[in-house]
């Protein structure tokens, strides 16, 4: 029987530089793919729906003593004999979105049923979001790699940072994330949910809103193994032999789904979003959902 899953990584050195180089060679392709995905999504990014500093007209309102005279809209005021009006603009404060994709070796996994590896999918999603957000004028950042920056070509800049990074930590340092920021984390979340919650808890404490994207390989979810099988963990190298793998499939699936359900419930409780993207499905599905959940927060509780 052909093997079901394999790591996309070439066997050989585990040198950090080689991996970075590999990743760097991967990034331009992913950037193109991310652009293509982004183009399929209609940008529904809107202003803050409050008056404030921005470019678009929001409302006229009567001038109140003490306000800057320069803000008076004289054209509108001329039509009224009694009042002087001020033109308010919609507040379009740039928003900071932290993006992070899991670089751990387990993300390199790709099964025969999947079209891309999990890391590839995670990077595509994150870069696509970077492209989308920087087009919308948001400030994006990669924890541990860049500070928040706003640029039209945010995705390119992020990818060049990624390409030149030598060693990426297993877990990002999220303490720099401030309140009202959005955090997008693409990972496979295969650790026990308690551990995941523990290292993401700092976000909840800082008041940031996180969008977790679980990139899942179909083989991990359906467990299509049978017969005598030896499983190897790509991260720890630990081995486990199952005499008849099909006998544990049912239990494994329920545990796997229970982990996901637990994370989902936790996210819902915190007002976060949790999106599952299988690598045999389209990246745009997850992109639309994440984008929706970033854009229309009020809708989440509406129909549930």
């Amino acid at each position: 029987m052909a093997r079901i899953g394999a790591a996309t990584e070439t066997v050989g050195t585990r040198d950090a530089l080689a991996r970075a180089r590999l990743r760097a060679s991967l990034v331009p392709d992913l950037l193109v793919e991310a652009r293509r995905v982004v183009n399929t999504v209609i940008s529904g990014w809107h202003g803050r729906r409050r008056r404030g500093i921005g470019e678009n007209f929001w409302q006229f309102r009567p001038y109140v003593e003490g306000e800057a005279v320069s803000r008076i809209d004289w054209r509108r005021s001329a039509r009224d004999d009694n009042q002087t009006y001020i033109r308010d603009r919609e507040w379009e404060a740039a928003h900071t979105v932290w993006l992070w994709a899991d670089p751990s070796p387990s993300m390199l996994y790709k099964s025969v049923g999947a079209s891309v590896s999990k890391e590839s999918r995670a990077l595509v999603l994150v870069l696509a979001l970077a492209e989308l957000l920087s087009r919308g004028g948001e400030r994006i950042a990669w924890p541990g790699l860049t500070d928040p920056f706003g640029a039209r070509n945010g995705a390119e800049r992020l990818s060049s940072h990624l390409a030149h990074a030598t060693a990426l930590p297993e877990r990002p340092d999220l303490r720099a994330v401030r309140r009202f920021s959005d955090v997008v984390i693409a990972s496979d979340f295969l650790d026990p949910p308690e551990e995941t919650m523990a290292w993401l808890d700092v976000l909840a404490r800082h008041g940031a809103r996180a969008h977790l994207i679980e990139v899942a390989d179909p083989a991990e979810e359906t467990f299509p193994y049978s017969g005598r099988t030896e499983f190897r963990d790509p991260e720890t190298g630990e081995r486990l032999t199952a005499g008849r793998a099909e006998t544990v499939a049912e239990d494994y699936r329920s545990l796997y789904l229970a982990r996901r359900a637990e994370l989902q419930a936790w996210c819902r409780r915190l007002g976060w979003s949790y999106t599952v993207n299988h690598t045999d499905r389209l990246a745009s599905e997850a992109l639309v959902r994440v984008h929706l959940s970033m854009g229309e927060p009020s809708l989440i509780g509406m129909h549930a």
Partner: protein
Amino acid sequence: MSWLPLSFGVPAVLWGLLALPVIWWLLRLTPPRPQMELFPPLRILQRVLKKEETPYQSPWWLTLLRLLMAALIVLALAEPIFNPRDRVASGDGAMAIVIDNGWASAPDWELRVATAERLIEDAAATGSPVVLAMTADLPNADIGPFDADTAHDRLAAAEPHPVSVDRPAIFARVAAAIEPLPNPAVAVLSDGLEAEGDAAAFQRLLAPASSLVWIAPDDLPILGTVSVENRPDEFAVTAVRAADPMPRQANIVALDEQGRGIAETVLSFGPGETRASAAMAVPFELRNDFSAIIIDGEEQAAAVRVLDENSRRRRIGLISQAEADQAQPLLSPLYYIRNALSPFADLVETQSADLARAVPQILQQKPAMIVMADVGTLPDEAHQALVDWVEGGGTLVRFAGSRLAAAEHDEDLLPVRLRTGERSLGGTLSWTEPQPIVGFPDTGPFSGLPAPSEVTVTRQVLAEPSSDIVERTWASLADGTPLVTGDRRGEGTLALFHVTPEATWSNLPISGTFVEMLRRIVQLSRNQGAIAASGGENGQPLPPYRMISADGGLVPPTPEARPLDFSAGEPSVTIENPPGLYGGEEGVVAHNLLPRDATFNPIARPQTPLPITEASYAADEQVDLKGPLVTAALILLALDTLAVFWMGGLFSRRAAMRPRAASTAAAGAIAAMALSILMLSPGPALAQDQDAPPPATQQQEVSDAEAIDAISRTRLAYVVTGNSSVDSVSRSGLAGLTRFLTSKTALEPAEPAGVDIETDELSFYPLIYWPVDAGAPMPSDAAIARVDAYMQAGGTVLFDTRDQYSTSLDAGSSPANRRLRDILDDLNVPPLEPVPEDHVLTKAFFILNEFPGRYAGSPLWVEASLNAESRQDRPVRVGDGVTPIMITGNDFAGAWATDSDGAPLFPTVPSDPLQRTYAFRAGVNIMMYMLTGNYKSDQVHVPVLLERLGQ
């Protein structure tokens, strides 16, 4: 296989044992190399998968177990038969086989036949003639010599008879038969019971014999009933057995006419006892229903004892001389006696008042007891007959009266000498008081009866005082004079009541004590001989009625049974007069096997100088070893399964693992069952495929189940177009609307259903959402017709072209729109109009002015309500019916579609949360309109109605 008493039905299968080394090699083989797999979620897998390494080699004992199992299966398939047979008789001369087939052989007759078979086979091996004789057969039965085949046939036809063996006669015939034969061997298959004349019979038999094969049973477990006795207060059964140091118990059951057990008791033999009695203390009414007494579990004739009238109700003859006046029955001397005795006795009366004729008539019935009420002097002939009868065991009860008081003394028929005349107590001319009874002496038959306080005696006859008057007194009055006296005469009993049998001399006859006293006396009595149903007096034989079979059952008469002839005294039990009931419907006589004094003595081996071979009864035990071998293999299989479970650490798993273990165990059990079926079936087992019932039935059942499922809860339905993306959007859209409905309204629909308009039943659903997809194949005419029928029957189809966005400039030219036109061409579409402002749809639940979906702007087309009146004072136009069709281009499903968390799947265009809310509200309104119709337009009349009611 001469060294083992084993033979194989299919020896070729034994070559399968050669496979054992191969199996051994396979079992010793290492387990297969595991498939190497990379698996990131290993930590999750770790929680379900214990370290489950199959060891490099199975342990030696497990290999041995499996090899043993394989060997057992191979051996079982070879159908081994264990046959411990050995040759009994040596010698090559003629063989005479004498079998006891009396009643004692019946329980293990098969064993005797099997033993005889072996002897015949031995004889057949040497080709010598066989003399086959049965000791309980007809004396003229053919005994041979036969060849082996004929002997086999005759042996197969032989059966035990419920009679005792007759050894002398048969042995003599056998001896005569073997005398001319050379070198004859005699085999005696005895039943183990000694019989009369054994010694002489054996001497005669063995005279011409050259050798003796002696076969006797090792023990004699048989029981026989020798007597039954209907005692005053119980029914006693006596049984015998052969000498045995062990105690034994047996169940005695009494059967009624229909063979039902109506009473039971336990009979216990003490250690070493050969005779035991048991009593059934049951009411006499029940006892009279007994027709047979059997020993439970004994399947032979001696354990059954049939009962006839003699052991049941007594016949009692009544004789009176003052029976003439029938007009005053209470004054009749026999009236109270008759009433007292009739429940438990048969009364025999005579019509003749002439004692010379009446007494012989009564005696002819052989009564147990004769009651004579105030009979004074008997004619000489009758007197002598009565005396003889009493001497022979009869019980004569006499009552006093004026006639007796005046009669001469009758030494033979009165227990005491009487004074002539009677004594009067308590009369008007007497000082004395009427005397009560003071009690019953313990020696008499009335012992234990309570003394009746209400009974007084005013007149009586008096006994002459004598030295033995006290012994003869059964009851006495307060002044010491006897009231009832009794004495024995020969075998019989005489009793005299010193008062009259009617209530003139005392009130004893109308008291309950009188009945009890008579019953005691009746129970003393015994029937004097069997009454011949068809006149036993002239010795006419009685035909057989019900026979006791050899195995202890009651059967119709066999052809050999001859009528029972009493002319030559008590007939004996013979093959021609087997035990049982003789007679007919109107009366039977029991003819029982064992006499009262029968004993079971084990037969002794005859003393003879001949060579004796002793053997025991044993069948050719052709033990089929296939079953035990398969059982052993199955047990090993179970052990193997348990061992595998144990090695797999299954028993130390958590409880959560149970289902899997159970399923594994179940699979193992099924495999074992399959194996056992394979093994035990004689031929190739054709497993019937019961999992596949006829397809038509299944189809029908499934569709019924689906129908029940579909109509038990309201569901939204969508048309499956075949385009998976459209269908999944429809499904999640309707699911989203379902959730919205559940949370906002009282309607709680079930999961939405996808319908295939070509095949599925549509009428289950109030509304069918049909996303028109130009890419999907055009529905067939039949499907369109079904949709048409659905719409005509009251259903509504919501067509959604989902093209508002693309056709805003050029309406009506999008592919979906053209497809919709194609579809509608074949439907009976009513005139349409966009939803007017005052349509019920706008007010069915929410108040809506527009019906947006994912897109906004396309109107919702409904059936035009042309004749509906629109009045200014009404907020809603009045009209009946629900529109059968709705058409929109707004892509409702896209707006309603949410994932399981309730988060929307598609952004609205333009992206406006409020538009999504309106889309959901539009869906609610449509659904409410579907389910409630124009109810809302009626509801608006409520204020007017309330006003009219004066509220």
